[in-house]
């Protein structure tokens, strides 16, 4: 999974019919010190995340492993909201 921050929402009316009802969020990838990386990803929300929250995103075929996204054209899903991140080994 990757660490990211929700920075926005995507609305779309015309889309694959399997995706009706999905909540799409724009997630900016973060480094472990919470500084933003360049890349962003559009992910389907499965935990009720909102803008500004730090989340974990599962990518690839694993993104289809939720009740909602099963067999749907989805390759990124938000599956956790981060409370705390403890880096024990700094290099």
């Amino acid at each position: 999974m990757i660490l990211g921050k929700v920075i926005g929402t995507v609305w779309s009316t015309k889309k694959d019919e399997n995706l009706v009802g999905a909540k799409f969020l724009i997630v900016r990838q973060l480094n472990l010190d919470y500084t933003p990386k360049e890349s962003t990803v559009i992910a389907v929300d499965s935990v009720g995340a909102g803008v500004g929250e730090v989340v974990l995103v599962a990518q690839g075929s694993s993104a289809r492993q939720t009740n909602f996204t099963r067999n749907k054209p989805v390759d990124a899903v938000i599956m956790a909201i981060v409370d705390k991140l403890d880096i024990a080994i700094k290099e």
Partner: protein
Amino acid sequence: MYLGKIIGTIWATRKYESITGYKMQLVQPLNGELQKVSSPIIALDTIGAGPGEIIYYVTASEAVIPLDVDMAPVDASIVGIVDSIYVEKK
């Protein structure tokens, strides 16, 4: 499967229901010489590994197989702790 080192832990109270109870660890991917490659990822811990340990992990949808549940949105799972490793010198 890939080699990695656990460098920390992540707490998330709110997570997808089927993975409640599983610990998530920060993993720094390593190569055969135990040098860092690419940036850290987050992996689900299925064996009880801790920070500082060298482990190996599976990625993609195979990461769901070691879990006790049928479906879980997980793309990396720690499946073993490395006791020793031998790599032929180049």
